[in-house]
């Protein structure tokens, strides 16, 4: 039997795909482009972020090709600068920041809360259009010559010396930031004011707690990036010296303002990943998450502490050593709530009967790789170590372990976990598992050598390097090829499953949560009747009982 869904739970009914659901409710391009349905908007985002992921991936692949040989022989230095800049900008602003919130948050959050939609559906659609406008500017930049400042746009190079499309790029990033802000705003109001009857804070799925924390970070950090980019644009256009030392400005001030956003930004990227992991661990161990309140509050703690550590990106930039010491200490603190989550997920799995479906494979990948990434972050947070490895491939490996080994693994877990809910179809499990393995192997082969090569001195953002680093670089590029295959396969089989996948019932995983109490795919208004929640978070017996009673199975 090829099907490997959990169909031993008593409430799983045979495929009862709703006749009318949000997908077939209305037809036509305009019904999608002018939709106010959060589910359709999530699908719009899914298309867009996937395209940008491919674009960002292509830049990465070109970089890895260049790095096969120690000489900078494939591209000029200027071109290589553009490659890593565009890779960073596309991946961060157009993929990682929106991905889980705008795709999974948009689709699942209102359903998890028992609401008919987000608080501001029109604003939600506007978010997507703003994102598309920012993204279009990004595409225009790519087509018209690119930008070479690094995604960090450090001054005065970006404002005075770079001859590339800095203004347009920062304008694109500025605009995209508002998409993020509006999404965060929507989530916060929905979580506060639109929960179903009986859904108290401590009954909420941990996904909601993490998305809440993410939204707080978005609201408070993104505007500071916005104003920083405004000042950047003013300096570039007027040729004044806000951040230019030759004209009396302080480039370190730019870095303070930039990182005040960009460090919390990494928590905007990882917290939604953690949100997905909590849901998947609960679902595939069929247990309540160990230490629910600790996990819930650790999300808030990460959000808060994440704002206090930004200058650890600036230890060697010329800040005062006393400030550096303060920030180093605070950086050590921020690891604690993340560690709490990892402990609690692992503790949940202890003595549980774990089902090793595709999402759970990605979850395991996440837990291991995020831990490595997080621990190496602690290394970097120590002043002495940072002086040695700052701006080396050690840093590159660290953040890719978190962003790719962490966030993207979680994204894949979430896509597979909720695929049946979103589409009404199961993906082919065997292919899912194969892809997860490829991603895990490919990822480690790509990025572990980068720790090594960075530690012994290879700098980042260089396309030429000392010959003794070549072996590790070749391994890294080989890994990138495997990783690419691991990402390409799901794009194919997920698309295939839309037509040929096994039809999914209401709750193919036997998980707890309001999204599993409605049909797959859900009706346009999410529920035929507003649900009343009488069960605690992840309370399997109570939820199953409630489902049996209300669904008459």
């Amino acid at each position, binding site marked *: 039997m090829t099907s490997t869904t959990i169909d031993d739970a008593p409430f799983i009914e045979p495929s009862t795909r709703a006749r009318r659901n949000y997908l077939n409710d209305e037809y036509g391009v305009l019904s999608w482009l002018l939709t106010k349905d959060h589910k359709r908007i999530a699908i719009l985002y899914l298309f867009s972020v996937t395209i940008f992921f491919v674009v960002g991936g292509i830049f990465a692949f070109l970089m890895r090709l260049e790095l096969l040989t120690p000489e900078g022989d494939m591209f000029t230095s200027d071109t290589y600068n553009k490659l890593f800049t565009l890779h960073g900008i596309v991946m961060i602003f157009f993929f990682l920041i929106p991905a889980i919130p705008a795709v999974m948050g948009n689709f699942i959050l209102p359903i998890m809360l028992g609401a008919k939609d987000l608080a501001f559906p029109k604003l939600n659609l506007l978010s997507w259009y703003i994102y598309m406008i920012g993204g279009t500017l990004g595409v225009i930049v790519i087509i018209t010559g690119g930008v070479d400042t690094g995604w960090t746009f450090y001054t005065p190079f970006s404002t005075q010396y770079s001859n590339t499309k800095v203004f347009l790029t920062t304008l694109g990033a500025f605009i995209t930031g508002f998409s993020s802000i509006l999404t965060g705003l929507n989530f916060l109001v929905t979580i*506060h*004011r*639109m*929960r*179903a*009857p*009986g*859904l*108290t*804070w401590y009954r909420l799925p941990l996904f909601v707690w993490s998305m809440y924390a993410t939204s707080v970070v978005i609201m*408070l950090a993104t505007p*500071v990036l916005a104003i920083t980019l405004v000042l950047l644009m003013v300096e570039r256009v007027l040729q004044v010296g806000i951040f230019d030392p030759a004209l009396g400005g302080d480039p*370190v*001030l730019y870095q*303070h*303002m930039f990182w*005040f956003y960009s460090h919390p930004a990494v928590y905007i990227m990882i917290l939604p990943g953690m949100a997905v992991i909590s849901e998947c661990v609960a679902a595939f161990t069929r247990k309540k998450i160990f230490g629910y309140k600790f996990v819930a509050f650790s999300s808030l703690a990460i959000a808060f502490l994440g*704002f*206090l550590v*930004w*200058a650890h990106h600036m230890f060697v930039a010329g*800040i*005062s*050593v*006393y*400030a550096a010491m*303060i*920030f180093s200490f605070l950086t050590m603190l921020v690891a604690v709530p993340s560690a709490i989550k990892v402990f609690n997920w692992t503790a949940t799995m202890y003595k549980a009967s774990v089902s090793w479906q595709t999402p759970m494979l990605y979850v395991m990948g996440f837990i291991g790789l995020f831990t490595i990434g997080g621990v190496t972050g602690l290394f970097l947070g120590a002043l002495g170590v940072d002086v040695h490895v700052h701006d080396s491939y050690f840093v590159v490996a660290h953040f890719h372990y978190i962003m790719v080994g962490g966030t993207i693994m979680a994204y894949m877990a979430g896509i597979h976990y909720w695929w049946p809910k979103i589409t009404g179809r199961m993906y082919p499990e065997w292919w899912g598992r194969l892809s997860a393995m490829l991603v895990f192997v490919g990822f480690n082969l790509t990025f572990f050598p980068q720790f090594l090569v960075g530690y012994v001195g290879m700098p980042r953002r260089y396309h030429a390097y000392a010959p003794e680093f070549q072996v590790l670089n070749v391994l890294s590029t080989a890994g990138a090829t495997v990783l690419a295959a691991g990402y390409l396969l799901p794009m194919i089989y997920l698309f295939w499953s839309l037509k040929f996948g096994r039809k999914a019932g209401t709750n193919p995983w036997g998980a707890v949560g309001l999204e599993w109490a409605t049909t797959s795919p859900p009706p346009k208004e999410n529920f035929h*009747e*507003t649900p*009343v929640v009488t069960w605690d978070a992840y309370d399997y017996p109570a939820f199953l009982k409630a489902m049996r009673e209300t669904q008459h199975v």
Partner: protein
Amino acid sequence: MAHQPDHETYSGHAAPPHQAPLGMYFAVFGALMVLTVLTVWVSRIDLGAMNTAVAMAIAVVKALVVILWFMHVIHSPRLTWIVVICSFLWLAVLFVLTFSDYLTRHWKMD
């Protein structure tokens, strides 16, 4: 749907909060005018480094007055208070930690 809204979920008020008396708005305006005059008057006295602090203190009072009464925060739910306080708190984080760099750059290590 006949059930009573659970107070723990959304507060299902049928009618929004109370309406303030008209005179309150004029009183607030008056206070803001007085404080504006004060701001200008104090700026013309040389208090050295204290000038900035005093000007900012008066501005803070004016802002508080606008927030509490013009923006109705004084009658708003607790959540509104939290949102307002948190935004200024986070701003304080930006200021304090950034200044911690600038103010200690020229300290000597012994």
